[in-house]
């Protein structure tokens, strides 16, 4: 019975335990969709490996086949086989039921965090130079307007950030403003959450639209301050001298 089949089961179980229980000890838990993806990949890897040659295929599929067809099975094995035939459809049924049963949970969301900006905002560049003065001005505006949510350390952990879903962006993360051009930030600050297109789920974001409070000049400067404070640089198509 032992051999490839047993090994595969151990590998799959091991990876599941690692992703589900061990990894969350060090970081946030993984969503179920991701765990499923990784397990599916592991499973295909095992299939590929054990079907590489005739012998390994036999030792992998043979026991399964013999078990299912009942070939030469007696006693406990036979009872187990009948049990599997009874339990498996029930499992599928239960799975289907839980999938379709009404529940209070909102459906899994997949909000596009950085949707495409409208045409009017594409290709704008910051008209203000990056120097000590603009950085200080920008940081000043940031401190009075943005830091309550986005945090004094530009890490999205301001005192007012708690409770927002989605949480305020963490600028220090290399996956946020470092991936974006300055014109993109200009759009997001100016038009706020309600200015997002539908895939960005404008009803979810709590970002205010700042166009009424801040002039364009201030928005451009706060962008300079933000990038400097978060130790990131904007995406550009030309190298800085």
């Amino acid at each position, binding site marked *: 019975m032992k051999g490839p089949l047993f090994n595969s089961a151990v590998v799959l179980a091991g990876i599941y335990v690692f992703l589900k229980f061990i990894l969350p000890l060090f970081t946030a838990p993984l969503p179920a969709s991701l765990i499923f993806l990784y397990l599916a990949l592991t499973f295909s890897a095992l299939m590929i490996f054990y079907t590489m040659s005739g012998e390994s295929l036999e030792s992998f599929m043979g026991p399964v086949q013999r078990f299912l067809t009942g070939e030469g099975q007696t006693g406990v094995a036979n009872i187990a086989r009948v049990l599997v035939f009874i339990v498996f459809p029930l499992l599928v049924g239960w799975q289907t039921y839980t999938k379709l049963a009404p529940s209070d949970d909102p459906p899994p969301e997949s909000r596009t965090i950085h949707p495409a900006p409208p045409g009017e905002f594409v*290709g704008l560049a910051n008209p203000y130079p990056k120097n000590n003065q603009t950085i200080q001005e920008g940081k000043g505006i940031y401190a009075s307007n943005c830091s309550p949510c986005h945090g004094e350390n530009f890490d999205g952990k301001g005192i007012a950030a708690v409770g927002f879903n989605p949480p305020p962006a963490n600028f220090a993360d290399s996956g946020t403003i470092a991936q974006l051009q300055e014109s993109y930030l200009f759009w997001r600050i100016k038009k706020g959450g309600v200015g997002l297109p539908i895939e960005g789920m404008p009803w979810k974001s709590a970002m205010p639209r700042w166009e009424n409070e801040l002039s364009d000049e201030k928005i451009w400067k706060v962008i300079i301050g933000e990038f400097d404070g978060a130790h990131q640089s904007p995406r550009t198509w030309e190298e800085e001298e």
Partner: protein
Amino acid sequence: MSEVAVLQLMGLCVVGTGILILLFLKAVFVRVLGFVIIMLGIFTLIALGVPQMASLPPAVETFDIASVKTPDDLASIGQKIFFSKGQCALCHSIGPSESARCPELAGIGAKLAPEFIYESLTQPQAYVYLDFRHDGLPEEYPARMPHINKNPIALSEQEIYSVIAFLQKMSGEPISIKVEDVLNIDVGEMKVASLVGHGGN
């Protein structure tokens, strides 16, 4: 049933058919077909499993010529033309830009008289701008300005004045284009009505 559910059902049926073929049929070609439809069915099911999102076009804004009352109305039409039919934004940006192929237009409405802008749009070679934003001799910009009032862009007079109004407004300049003048331009037909959103009549 939702459209997704219908498609999922179809995908499952296809995969099921494929499995039945592989289980019971012997002919090689049919079996290969069964194999292919299983793969295609699974692909479709996976694609149905990821978040479904259609991209809806923004609403087409229709424009009634009678609704133009103020110069600001004119400028807002001009803005739309600037970013669509006029194709201005293919080369020009408002504010400095790395990808712009031609001079940027921030503040242009304050720097230039409307007559001069009009001439630049309709006779672009009358006065040629060169690119000085680098060391050495000035160079021509990579794209040449087309005649805006001729094919293929072919803006009407009214449309050109709307764009000029937009350029002035954007530069913080009072709009000197007069609404009555624009409305009185004889174009034979109501071209303006069809310009915004491209014939959304």
